[in-house]
């Protein structure tokens, strides 16, 4: 093992170090100075992003070409870019960089949206921010992980941090969310581990790209490998929140503190899709697409239908966003359908589209959860649809951003969500899965109904009186410059990404 390759993991090290600094800082500073903790956590995420970009640039300069999108697409000639480092435990490729970037962004934005919770001692403690950073470190590792062992450990770093974060508000609902998440999450990890054990038992290999390389052994133990991969997929589909393994999502998203919900909906989802993407593109690839892609397609169609139609009935905005997150998992799954005769360029294009979707979805969802976290009355958190009535009069800026996020989530141009959906539908059609893509467009139209309900509540619905005898007042928001920064920043990015969808790819050159 070449230890100098450890420097490729420096961004993860920066985030881990920041987590330690935040936790220790909490012990030495006075209680009134605690507002500094989120700033340190934010600095950790920003430094991590800087280190990630620095790594990318130095790799590109060294090899005079940008890294391949995934390790399977790398050239094998001598002196060419070899993304596999540290004995094959990690793959330093563009997909990994992109997932790590989305994870850092989600971490930074959820720190920003939690920074106003100073009246809750657990949500303003160093441990809380430390755990967010540790979860982000787990997501980044998951983006780069290239063998089953590293993958499993990184997944658990991320999952256990989020189980704890879900329960960190320490009231009944938060506790219920954490317990449900823990029990069902542990259950899904058991599936994942059984799958890995089967595959390792049959092939003796742990590398994601090697387990299915055709050999005599693969033929003779096809039974075990198929069973193992099926178990593995059950675990992964659970983690991304695809139907029929989505039962935990609404309760967990509703009960968890809103900043954590944002992180779970975006960063955790992106990291889980990193695993799914590596399975679809590296493990199965075009060679096994006939065997496996139909399963992804079926899960995608079911997930889109379940998510969109259950979201129609929700009165609680957080629950509605949770079901909308399930629906978006369905659209994202369409982006991972591999055609049996795809070549490396087409696979790289597909991966790029899926990453664009993850980025756009992270921005608009974190923004929407940021607004939901601010709406409250007499210090009480309000999450119901009717509580948003009158928001446009009291806080026109926030209402405008929320409306933009809703339009973007529904997939209307000129927002980022439109191009994201367009690109994954295009991926699916190009790969030859026309019917799932058509169903995706149809459910996407149906989703307009519940996203527009939020807009109607903010702009059209009459304001109800909160107490009898009092004049009716619109929704009131707590003021927080950090969350406002997050909301307006995400709003701006949603428009910019929609107007210049090639922006992120341009940066990669």
């Amino acid at each position: 093992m070449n230890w100098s390759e450890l420097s490729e993991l420096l961004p993860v090290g920066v985030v881990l170090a920041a987590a330690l600094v935040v936790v220790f800082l909490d012990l030495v500073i006075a209680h009134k100075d605690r507002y500094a903790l989120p700033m340190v956590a934010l600095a950790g995420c920003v430094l991590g992003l800087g280190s990630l970009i620095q790594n990318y640039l130095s790799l590109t300069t060294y090899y005079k070409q940008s890294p391949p999108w995934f390790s399977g697409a790398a050239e094998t000639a001598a002196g060419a870019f070899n993304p596999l480092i540290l004995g094959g435990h990690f793959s330093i490729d563009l997909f990994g960089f992109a997932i790590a970037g989305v994870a850092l962004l989600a971490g930074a934005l959820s720190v920003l949206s939690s920074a106003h919770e100073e009246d809750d001692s657990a949500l303003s403690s160093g441990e809380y921010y430390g755990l967010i950073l540790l979860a982000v470190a787990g997501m980044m590792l998951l983006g780069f992980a290239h063998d089953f062992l590293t993958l499993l450990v990184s997944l658990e770093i991320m999952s256990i941090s989020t189980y704890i974060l879900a329960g960190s508000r320490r009231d009944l609902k938060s506790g219920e969310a954490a317990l449900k998440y823990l029990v069902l999450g542990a259950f899904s990890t058991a599936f994942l581990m059984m799958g890995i054990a089967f595959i390792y038992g049959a092939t003796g290999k742990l590398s994601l790209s090697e387990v299915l390389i055709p050999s005599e052994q693969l033929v003779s133990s096809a039974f075990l490998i198929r069973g193992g991969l099926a178990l593995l997929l059950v675990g992964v589909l659970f983690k991304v929140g695809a139907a029929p393994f989505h039962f935990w999502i609404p309760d967990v998203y509703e009960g968890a503190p809103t900043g954590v919900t944002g992180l779970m909906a975006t960063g955790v989802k992106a990291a889980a899709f990193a695993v799914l993407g590596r399975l679809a593109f590296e493990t199965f690839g075009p060679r096994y697409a006939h065997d496996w892609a139909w399963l992804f397609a079926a899960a995608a169609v079911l997930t889109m239908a379940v998510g969109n139609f259950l979201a129609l009935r929700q009165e609680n905005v957080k629950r509605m966003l949770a079901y909308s997150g399930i629906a978006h998992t369905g659209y994202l799954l369409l982006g991972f359908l591999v055609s049996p005769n795809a070549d490396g360029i087409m696979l790289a294009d597909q991966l790029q589209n899926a990453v664009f979707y993850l980025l756009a979805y992270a921005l608009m969802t974190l923004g929407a959860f940021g607004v939901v976290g601010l709406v409250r009355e007499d210090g009480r958190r309000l999450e119901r649809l009717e509580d948003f009535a009158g928001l446009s009069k009291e806080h026109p800026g926030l209402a405008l951003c929320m409306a933009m996020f809703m339009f973007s989530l529904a997939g209307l141009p000129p927002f980022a969500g439109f191009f994201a959906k367009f690109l994954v539908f295009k991926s699916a059609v190009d790969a030859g899965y026309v019917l799932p893509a058509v169903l995706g467009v149809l459910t996407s139209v149906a989703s307009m109904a519940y996203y527009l309900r939020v807009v109607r509540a903010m702009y059209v619905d009459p304001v109800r009186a909160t107490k009898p005898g009092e004049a009716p007042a619109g929704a009131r928001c707590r003021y927080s410059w950090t969350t406002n920064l997050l909301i307006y920043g995400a709003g701006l990015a949603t428009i910019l990404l929609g107007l210049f969808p090639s922006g992120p790819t341009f940066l990669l050159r």
Partner: protein
Amino acid sequence: MVDLLFLAAAALCVISACAIVTCKNPVYSVIGMLPFFLGIAGLFVLLEATFLAAMQIMVYGGAILVVFLFVIMLINLRPEEIRDDFSFGRYLGLAALAGVTGGVILSFVRAGVPPDGELERAFAMGIGSREGQEAMSGGVLFGSAESIGLTLFRQYVIPLELVGVLLMVAILGAVILSKKKL
């Protein structure tokens, strides 16, 4: 002989696992874990992983079991407080989960049950080969503490370090969830 021992250990595991899940009294459930761990240790011995078998008994049968018992005694659950509040919806969810999971697995094993000896051959070609494993760890005896240590600290040292991060997560979690005033 080995087959008989395997069947005995496996049967012990399955029966005690069922007992753990179905016992109403949580103390009985925990006690049921003891034969389960012993059965697993027996399976390890049959696989010639003697070090793992010893660890299984010491760590799980000793430490973890006692911790479980302590927790149950501390929260002092009485059997009459434990309710079976399984609603129809939950049964439906469980049935759907079981159905889909079973369907996924079945659809991939529809190629049929492998003929005799195929599983054994598959295992022998994978990790089961002692020679391959011993060659990897520099000729030390398969299943010994030495060979496990060498594999763990040479080839898998990075995942091992990451497990350290995982432990830190657990410690922070214990602080944030249990400390009265943060």
